[in-house]
């Protein structure tokens, strides 16, 4: 197990290096000159003004040289300075925003699990029932077909404007006021959690359906174990194995997918920071932001692999 872990962790570094190079190159290939966005447009800037701005930020150097400088700074722990928000370092921006995004991503993940486990279990145990026969198709369709931004606006209209139960947007940290934080997180987590719950529900339903006819389940029932023990200890535990791996992997994508949720609900997380940085061609922030997302996805995949081996001893990690 230790060797496996070590190999996997070492294997992350070349992936990170290649990703950083690709991200750097692709971002710099996007048309649009950040120097043009930085110079005041009134009065109209001259070529010299733009060149001076370019030189100030080192955008006049060859792209490979810029990459080497950037990488060197990163290895020294310096993520650089934001050019669109000069008052803030990239580290300051990313670290404060990541904490916010973690609130949204984890609460959305929690909502997904909260919806999908009972629903999937019920559907798997009773595949001929109304939930499995009619509702699952409908729920899957709705969950996949409604774009997140639209779902977010519908949730705001219903829960905030019509019922007046939750705030329309904004963010409160769980450290400051846990109850208020949950109130603010309810709608974003529902918006981010519903699409994930559709995937998990389908996985759990089919997994339960398959396992419930296994001999060890029949044996447990024949032994006279209470049905709650059979379901929770024998059935659900085994049914969740494939779901855990999918869930760990999709948690990484939840962070990346927070862009839309954060925009609709006005949450100042890394998703919104990324969108603003792309618009402003704030290279340092974009690069750092993508690196954070990549690290998060890689870490989630690593956790998924480890969990898979831990939950199913038949899979040998060594």
């Amino acid at each position, binding site marked *: 197990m230790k060797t496996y872990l070590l190999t996997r962790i070492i294997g992350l570094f070349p992936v990170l290096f290649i990703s950083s190079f690709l991200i750097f190159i692709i971002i710099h290939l996007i048309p649009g000159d950040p120097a043009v966005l930085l110079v005041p447009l009134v*009065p109209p800037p001259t070529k010299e003004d733009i060149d001076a701005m370019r030189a100030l930020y080192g955008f006049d150097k060859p792209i490979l040289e810029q990459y080497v400088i950037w990488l060197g700074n990163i290895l020294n722990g310096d993520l650089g300075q934001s050019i669109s928000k*000069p008052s803030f370092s990239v580290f300051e921006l990313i670290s404060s925003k990541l904490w916010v995004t973690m609130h949204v991503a984890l609460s959305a993940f929690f909502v997904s699990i909260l919806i999908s486990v009972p629903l999937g279990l019920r559907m798997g145990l009773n595949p001929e029932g109304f939930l499995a026969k009619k509702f699952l198709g409908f729920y899957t369709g709705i969950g996949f077909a409604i774009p997140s931004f639209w779902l977010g606006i519908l949730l705001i209209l219903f829960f905030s404007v019509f019922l007046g139960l939750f705030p329309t947007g904004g963010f409160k940290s769980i450290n400051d006021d846990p109850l208020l934080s949950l109130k603010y997180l309810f709608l974003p987590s529902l918006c981010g959690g519903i699409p994930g719950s559709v995937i998990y529900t389908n996985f759990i339903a089919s997994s339960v359906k398959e396992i419930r006819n296994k001999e060890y389940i029949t044996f447990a029932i024949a032994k006279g174990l209470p049905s709650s023990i059979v379901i929770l200890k024998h059935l659900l535990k085994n049914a969740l194995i494939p779901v855990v791996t999918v869930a760990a992997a999709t948690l990484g994508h939840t962070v990346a997918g927070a862009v839309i949720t954060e925009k609709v609900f006005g949450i100042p997380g890394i998703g919104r920071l990324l969108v603003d940085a792309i618009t402003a061609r704030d290279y340092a922030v974009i690069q750092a932001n993508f690196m954070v997302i990549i690290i998060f996805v890689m870490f989630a995949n690593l956790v998924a692999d480890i969990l898979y081996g831990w939950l199913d001893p038949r899979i040998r990690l060594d």
Partner: protein
Amino acid sequence: MKNKKNKKYIFSILFILFPAICFSETILKIGQIGDIKSLEPYRNAAPNYLMIENLHDQLLFNDRNRGFESELATSWKISSDYKSVIIKLRPGMFTHDGTPVDSKLLKWVLEERGKQSWPNITRTVVFGKVSATVDIIDDRTAKINFSEAFANMESKLSLLILADPDMFDKKDGSKARFNEEESVIGTGPFKMVEYVPGSHMKWERFENYWQNNVPKFDRVHITYYGDGASMMAALETGEVDLVFRPPYEEMARFKNKSGFKLWVPETLGLSSILMVNPNAPGLEDSRVRQAIRLAIDRQAISNAVFEGFGLPTASPAVKSSFAYSPNLEVPPRGDITKAKNLMKQAGNPKVSVKLTYGSNDSAYRMIGEILQANLKKIGIDLVLDPQERNNYINMRTSQTFQMMPSVMAGANGHPADLTDSFVFRPKDNGFFNDPNEVVIKEFKDYQKWFDLGMKAKNDSDKKEAWSNVLQAVKDGSWVIHLSGQPFAMVSSSRVKGITWTQHDKPVLKYAYID
């Protein structure tokens, strides 16, 4: 006995409530779409307007009637050649961190910032590339000398902000960027106490503000929203009291909605314009450019794009300006017959041009579609060319577009204010890359009238000079005015009274709330 007990209870409740009632703070909660562009006061982008006008004071206050009132300056004496001004500053003023607002600060703003590696935006935005020096006469009196004349000197002074040097420099002087700890240090009625990028900004009343009895409330919380729908939902639920620059369709929805008020400045200081590149094939002929100006259905633009809140006008100056001339106007629905005649005189050329605009801007797309239909009637094929925002700005800056919609400020003020919007001064500002000098050659008197306008000493000279400059616009210069553009706010009934500057920036110190 029971009565005594009741009295006791009432007194106890009043005792508890009294401090709460007496010391409760009034907070104005504002929503706006998108974060500010920068803490730099002269990043004069629309999302910064609230910050510019309320965290900072200017030397003069420019009201909506084109009047100038004293703000940081108590008096100002402009020289007869419009090249210098003697400023007397108000006594006993301080910036938010206690730095005295005096002649030294004025000198620092106009001279010292120019030496920093970060461009001196303060000076370039207000005075263009004209050089400025400051002679200190005494603590409160200084003379500003410019290398060129400014006919609109007062207007310029109404844009000059005196912000604290600590806002721009690190304490050790190592970096000419913003100081992270100090952030915004202005002189305005509010001071910034918190800013979380992408989330919110909080202000509180500046206790040492020079003007008594303002502002009328204690705090301002500004929340930045990702989109208009979320922001308007927050207004409806009472999470914010006021929204700044709502989407036009929402303005229409809230216009007659009970419990809400729509605030639109009576005269619109912003104009939508169409920039026409006179070097683009087919557009070199001024008759073609004049025909385009005549063929546009401005009423349709006002109705469809600005939901009826726009002001159809082909004049660069609004009616309240001394330079306004009804001769510059075109019927709101356009004059196709005249436009066709002009095209005929030009030999009915086959013109096909691209209209480049930012792909994220639905208003520009709608303007483009209307123009496409209008110009087809006079035989001009308009191809819509949506570009990613940065490309769009790049093309605008490098002037590699053929036609491009844009926005211009300054229509409410002195015609010389329009120079800031690169409408005039073809030599310096306008088509400064104009390789064939199309505009300059055709309007050779244009620059002469412009120069006269900047130096005119009496009202009749001024009017004559500026009316000639505006005539050049009519005669087929490279800017075509489409419509006055509303820059509104919507509030709950809690907000009573909003004051606007001439440039459509809301002044919150005079607002009052329940």
